[in-house]
């Protein structure tokens, strides 16, 4: 048995024995520490758990030592279901509105977090697609005698693909962090209505997501960086060969788009065109 399973079973057994929640928490903390100490001394997780003895004997020791009054509180905790239902119904206007409010806040936050994730994923996919479009641009350029335009598209596309590969670890890290934040937030909101074992499983999952910086093969990063540099070099070389001068863009006229002045710079020479847009 591993540590998490052991602690879950211990908590379940203590709950079934009507041990008050504060005691359940303290006991779980103590035994988790004991497992960690044994592992630190060289035992495997399974050996460490086994060395603690059976869950029944642990529970027996804790229950036998509890004052009668505490055991009474434990029983009250799990008390009369009919009474609980009536109380819940009578107080519905209070907790119902709070619950709806919390649910809406939770849903909004989750939606915002996942929109961010969707935007990042869209950017990443677009960068990869730009690479494929760049190759198509090069083929098209060669076939139609507009090699410079094709080479420029190829350079920019390859550079964006390289950027996507270089940003991959960051993407994975942010994705995992978003999952972690969503799960933690949901656990925080739902805790009063959640079984202890479900909460523990959720916490363990969130902790795995938090994990740390993802492992990405160095070769992949080197390939990404090479693509980024190669693409940038090709694009700059094409622009330089065409005699491109950035400051000439400022002379371009503006157009009115949705009530705002948009300066759409259009630069073209020998079949190579470049568009740059800015808002006023």
């Amino acid at each position: 048995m591993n540590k998490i399973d052991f602690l879950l079973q211990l908590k379940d057994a203590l709950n079934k024995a009507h041990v008050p929640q504060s005691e359940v928490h303290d006991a779980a903390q103590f035994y988790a520490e004991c497992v960690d100490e044994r592992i630190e001394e060289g035992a495997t997780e399974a050996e460490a758990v086994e060395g603690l003895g059976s869950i029944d004997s642990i529970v027996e020791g804790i229950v036998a030592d509890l004052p009668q009054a505490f055991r009474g509180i434990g029983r009250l905790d799990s008390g009369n279901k009919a009474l609980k239902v009536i109380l819940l119904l009578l107080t519905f206007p209070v907790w119902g509105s709070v619950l709806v409010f919390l649910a809406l806040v939770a849903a909004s936050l989750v939606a915002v977090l996942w929109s961010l994730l969707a935007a990042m994923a869209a950017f990443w996919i677009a960068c990869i697609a730009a690479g494929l479009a760049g190759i198509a641009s090069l083929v098209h350029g060669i076939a139609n005698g507009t090699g410079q335009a094709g080479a420029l598209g190829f350079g920019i596309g390859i550079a964006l693909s390289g950027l996507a590969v270089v940003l991959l670890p960051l993407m994975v890290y942010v994705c995992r962090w978003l999952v972690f934040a969503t799960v933690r937030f949901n656990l925080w909101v739902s805790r009063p209505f959640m079984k202890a074992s479900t909460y523990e499983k959720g916490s363990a999952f969130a902790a795995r997501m938090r994990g740390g910086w993802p492992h990405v093969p160095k070769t992949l990063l080197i390939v990404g960086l090479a693509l980024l540099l190669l693409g940038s070099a090709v694009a700059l070389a094409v622009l330089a060969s065409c005699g491109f001068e950035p400051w000439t863009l400022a002379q371009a006229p503006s157009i009115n788009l949705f009530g705002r002045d948009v300066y759409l710079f259009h630069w073209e020479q020998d079949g190579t065109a470049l568009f740059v847009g800015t808002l006023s």
Partner: protein
Amino acid sequence: MESQLKRGFLELCVLATLAHGDSYGYQIIKDMPRALGMTESTLYPILRRLKAQGSLSENAQEHGGRTRKYFTITDKGRRQLDEFAQEEQAIQEILAYVLKGAAK
């Protein structure tokens, strides 16, 4: 009565261990004589009881990326040990009496 005696005796043993310095659960078990057969499941209720009666205090400290709970003997705990030590003569007499009875 037997378990009451044992409980009281084990409590004193834990206090005696902590009298040497602050310690944590697993280390307390390792420091106690093996003959006592102390285990985690025996120690935990004793620590809880000693804490509840104010004989020891606890504080959590960071250790290797996790929390380790250290226990410290309080003045009350030390007084308990002193009181026991003062009864040594009486305890020896009782023990001798019991052993003498067992030998018959």
